[in-house]
């Protein structure tokens, strides 16, 4: 194969790629300082624990960034948890897989693995991979599809958000316990990759838990297992937001967010959008959370100094709520989404006509 041709193709693929970061030096140094602080805090905490003779406490600390409530709460469903700011560290607690505020009971007949190494081909059917994703692509796709779940930590990156939107079927739902989840399914991909139906290959991202769940289940398994996933409640709050640029993606005729407005970098416009979203003060409690999978949805993709953030807005007459990946869920008044859509450069309207 002509090396020159491949080199030229690769070159053409990135010829127009330009950095998105306005000040990469500042971004890198900011992350570097944050990394050093985290390391310093961790070392300090270990020293304090050891100095206090708290060897017994070390296993409890071994979860790193994991919240203490994962280990400590005797009645987790009743206590609120903070929004996870980074990827969760999934682990098996008793007969449940816990990742941030996500709790997934291990279904009867299933087992868990957490070695981080097992390849997809070697994963037995009815396995939950905890903390890693055995890759079912590449050579794995020739192993066929099988009942399989993975629970892993994830932060909202441009890749993940783009991936959820790429499915052109991003939907928001509310899990038992009240946390919002963004879900996309890949039926066509599953068919193309595995040639098998009626498997559902679905990805579920819980922005407040820093966790992703991937499932490949037949319809029966899907109906039995999916409803068992629950979450620990997060205290109601207004939207947490920040941004350096923004882009709004409105729903298509099926209600899926694929119709994109322009990318906005005008600080004045962004400030207005943040001001409007920040002005929504009707925080929705976990009991009031109402998003379900069949509701039309709009997404505002924000770029922040620490990465992307998203506000997902359900546009149903019965449930108009905005949820921020950084925390907070509020009820939005009728007309708000249209106003935001136009402010961020969209034409027409996004809310369903009454």
């Amino acid at each position, binding site marked *: 194969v002509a090396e020159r041709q491949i080199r030229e193709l690769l070159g053409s693929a990135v010829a127009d790629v330009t950095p998105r970061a306005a000040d*990469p030096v500042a971004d890198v140094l900011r992350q570097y300082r944050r990394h050093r602080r985290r390391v310093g805090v961790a070392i300090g905490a270990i020293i304090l624990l050891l100095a206090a003779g708290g060897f017994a406490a070390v296993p409890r600390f071994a979860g790193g960034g994991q919240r203490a409530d994962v280990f400590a709460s005797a009645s987790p469903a009743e206590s609120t948890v903070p929004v996870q700011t980074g990827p969760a560290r999934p682990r098996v607690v008793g007969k449940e897989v816990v990742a941030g505020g996500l709790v997934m009971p291990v279904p009867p007949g299933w087992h868990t693995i957490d070695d981080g190494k097992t390849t997809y081909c070697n994963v037995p059917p009815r396995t939950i991979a905890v903390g890693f994703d055995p890759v079912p692509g590449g050579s794995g796709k020739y192993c066929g599809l099988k009942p399989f779940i993975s629970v892993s930590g994830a932060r909202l990156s441009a890749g993940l958000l783009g991936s959820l939107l790429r499915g052109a079927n991003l939907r928001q739902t509310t899990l038992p316990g009240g946390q919002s989840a963004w879900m996309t399914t890949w039926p066509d991909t599953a068919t193309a990759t595995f040639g098998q139906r009626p498997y559902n290959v679905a990805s579920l991202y819980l922005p407040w838990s820093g966790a992703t769940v991937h499932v490949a289940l037949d319809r029966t398994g899907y109906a039995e297992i999916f409803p068992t996933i629950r979450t620990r409640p997060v205290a109601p709050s207004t939207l947490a937001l920040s941004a350096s640029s923004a882009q709004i993606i409105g729903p298509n005729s099926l209600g899926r967010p694929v119709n994109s407005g322009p990318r906005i970098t005008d600080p004045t416009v962004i400030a207005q959008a943040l001001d409007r979203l920040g002005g929504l003060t009707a925080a929705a409690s976990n009991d009031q959370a109402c998003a379900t999978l069949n509701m039309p949805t709009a997404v505002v993709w924000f770029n922040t100094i620490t990465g992307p953030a998203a506000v997902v807005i359900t546009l149903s007459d019965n449930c108009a709520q905005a949820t921020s990946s950084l925390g907070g869920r509020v009820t939005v008044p009728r007309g708000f989404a249209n106003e935001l859509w136009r402010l961020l450069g969209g034409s027409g309207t996004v809310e369903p006509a009454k």
Partner: protein
Amino acid sequence: VTEPEGFREFVTERYAALVRYGTLLTGDHGHGEDLVQTALITACRAWRRLHPDGDPEAYTRRVMSRGAWRAARRLWRQEQPAAELPETVHENPYDMHDTAHLVLSALRALPAQQRVVLVLRYWGGLSEQEIADQLGCSPGTVKSRASRAIAALRGGHLADAITEETR
């Protein structure tokens, strides 16, 4: 933490090129830029060894390629990143046909390890032994990954763009 001497100049001068490299290694602009920033943090920590007598760009690229190689164990196959948000209303917003889009789509469709080897071999111009040394694997692994990557590209939408001229 003060800014290491020479770090700003290095990043300012080479950041765009590193982002292009990261985009190829991951098949995605967003992931690629994330990869660059993560590698630059590592470079910042090692800066005293890299400046003024070392080669910070080679070090950063090595960190990036290793990071992309290891990512093969983490990324869910179906969770391929979108190239870009769609800019216009379109029923199938990803149905674009420009070369850049096709190539990046083809790269994303490759398993991560094949993609990394392909980029190091053909974009970086490294030999199989050099790639093996950089990634900590055997030359045989490099050879097989490269071979499969080429076969996959020739079997996909890029078939017309890649002819069998030489081996």
